[in-house]
């Protein structure tokens, strides 16, 4: 029997104005700080043994057991084309709820480390800079300026549903400058 549809959280809806303001979970990946909406995060866990699944892209590390559920795990470093790094004590799997097709699914993302939860106001968030040539990067929500520096806000639904994310390099360069 069908159960009711899961309420979309308000932050996931793409109304203009300031749908982007809110709480974010910041994490590191290489030299950069990224952040995703806290509402998308289900839990954070240490790295555990991941079972590899054949015939998948290299950034799909495999599947893990999340309290009896089998969920896929994506290495965000590899997804963004960053060099692979050995997992350390700080390495985390962030379990996020993403929309996949018509439903929701849980997915783990491997990041170098989780840093903090930020509360961002509309004034803190800037639109993604224009990269010219009409390049649009659908998985970027914008850039947040904080005391510690610039944080790149990711639309995690888009990140995980997009096949190619190589445009990140351009973003990183722009962020540096």
């Amino acid at each position, binding site marked *: *029997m069908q159960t009711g549809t899961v309420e979309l959280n308000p932050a996931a809806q793409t109304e203009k104005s300031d749908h982007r303001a809110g709480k974010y979970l910041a994490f590191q990946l290489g030299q950069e700080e990224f952040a995703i909406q806290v509402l998308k995060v289900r839990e954070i866990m240490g790295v555990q*043994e991941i*079972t*590899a699944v*054949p015939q*998948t892209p290299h950034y799909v590390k495999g599947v893990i057991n999340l309290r*009896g*559920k089998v969920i896929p795990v994506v290495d965000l470093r590899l997804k963004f084309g960053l060099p692979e790094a050995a997992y350390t004590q700080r390495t985390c799997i962030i379990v996020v709820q993403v929309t996949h*097709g018509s439903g929701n699914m849980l997915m783990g993302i491997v990041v170098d480390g989780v840093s903090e939860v930020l509360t961002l106001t509309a004034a803190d968030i800037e639109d993604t800079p224009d990269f010219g040539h009409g390049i649009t990067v659908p998985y970027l929500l914008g850039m947040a300026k904080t005391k510690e520096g610039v944080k790149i806000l990711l639309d995690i639904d888009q990140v995980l549903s997009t096949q190619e994310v190589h445009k990140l390099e351009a973003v990183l360069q722009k962020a540096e400058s």
Partner: protein
Amino acid sequence: MAKRSKPDSVEEKLRAHLETLAMQAVLAGDLDQSLHVLKLVESEAARAGHPRLAQEASSLLAQLSQAAASPGGSPSPWEFISEGVLRLQHALEEANQGSAVAPVGGPSSAPPEPQPSAGESQPLARDPELVRDFVVESREHLANIESSLLALEQDPANAESLHAAFRGFHTIKGLAGFLEFAAIQEVAHEVETLLDLARNQQLSVTPERIDAVLKAADYLKAAINQVDASLDGRPLESFADNRNLLWMLRMAAAASGEESQASAEAAQSGRAGPQVSGSSASAALAGSAENRAIKVDTEKLDHLVDMVGEMVIAQSMLRHDPDLALNRSPRLQRTLSLLSGITSDVQKTAMGLRMVTIGTLFRRMGRLVRDLARKTGKQVELVTAGEETELDRQIVEELADPIMHMLRNSIDHGIESPEERAAAGKDPCGRITLAAHHQSGQIVIQISDDGRGLNREKILQRGRERGLVPPGVTPSEAELYNLIFEPGFSTAERVTEVSGRGVGMDVVKKNIVRMRGKVEVASQTGQGTTFTLKLPLTLAIIDGLVVGVGAQRYIIPIYSVVEMLCPSRDSVTTAPEQGEMVLVRGSLLPVIRLNERFGVEARARHPSEGLLVVAEQEGKRFSVLVDEFIGKQEVVIKSLGPMFSHVRGIAGGAILGDGRVGLILDLEAIFAWKGEA
């Protein structure tokens, strides 16, 4: 109130004619009589000065004669008539606008509903939660109603079934009224009136009336499906026009004048209806069982099963904890073993929660057999046994289609016509048995008929024609019967509405195999055919062999494994451009290296250093090379989700004893994929 008023004006007479037509159309009754009535309508309408009505009638007549000229194709004439009657009613209403005939008392002579009941207005305060409950509850009632009605048909004096059906409609009416589903409420109300009359013995229960009530139940089912669909946020489409149905029900309720005749007919056609043995008892039983049951969302149930699985793992970790093992305290050991006993009990109970009895499925088939028997003009009795056999809910759901196909086949091809049966010295009433029982961890379902049996010559001939049997080869009986599961294989000489297009049996087999089951056929010419289905009790759990390849561990479902062996170095040969082969007891089997398929590092360089798992697919054996055998484990199958739906050779995942995920191999897919790799 049951007495019909005499038609006193032309309009009244016309309306009465249309009512007769509507009823005939719904019941698929006497075509000749309907044509006659239609002609009467045409001539009387012309005489009374209703040109539009006369025109509609004549165009309907033309349509019908056209349909009669091309038999076999196109919808049945009744569909034309029921559509046509609707147009005629509209025309009559229009014609009446001018003359404004006051309705004369009596339910059957009431004018057609002035406001169209189709096109429901959407009340603002319709709580989706309430609507959902309505859908669930109504469906349950409809299922019970159906079995009660079938029992009632069998035994018209069965007051309990009559009451049960009445109560069902009454509840639906109440709920629909509350939620303002007017069309549903109207139909339920009319049925209630009809059944109430029968309850008070003012009407006798005839097959025709049961037909009418079943039609009403079908209407409600369709309407409730629409309501259900609207829960997903889509706007509620207007319900199908129920006016014909309402008229028909009123006719059935009012036609007490024909009582004596109808009951005489009923007595005559008493054997015509299929008999569902013990259905009244089982319906009553189901009723009381449902009262003791509660409904639980399957998602919650799955979650419980997940958590219990985790608990089992945690318990086993505790048991093997090295620190605890050092503690030799007998009290601790006792507590630990108590915990392990309880854990496995909890696991068994949790798994058992997903089990349902197969009786609900069998009861649904009663209706199908009844309808098909009517349609094909055969007399069929359905006998069921082992309704209390329990199996996984999911399997019950997926079994519905295959069993329906097989019953259809049995009725259409297996059971002979009453005359043929009588000529062969058999009881003119055919018998189909639907039985279920448990056997060594599997569920066995048998569908047997006492019909003419499979025609071996014809199957062989078709098989040769289609190149399935090479010339000069005489297939064994089992091989021959298996041909009927080939796609597009049909020995039926004519394609009927029911079956014979050759689709069906292959779908049956595919569905059963997908559920990890088997179908077997046995047949005796002139004695009947028996289909035997063997299925696992649940789709959720399999017995698996855990094997290791390099650092990876995989689970191989035990049902697909023939044997495992460590080959000697010289039993393995490499054929050029063929790959490795291994000689096992005189036959050469291809060797598939699992590590190469999955791109992982293996320890075994040569098959003799590893382990070969021999499996069979459609009679072809092959072997899969793995490094080692780790153990045997019962695992709960988990879907890997949409992200991995394209992965070949993996059937799913499972949580292993140490909490890690192991991948379940699909050996057949691995074998089939060989050519492309």
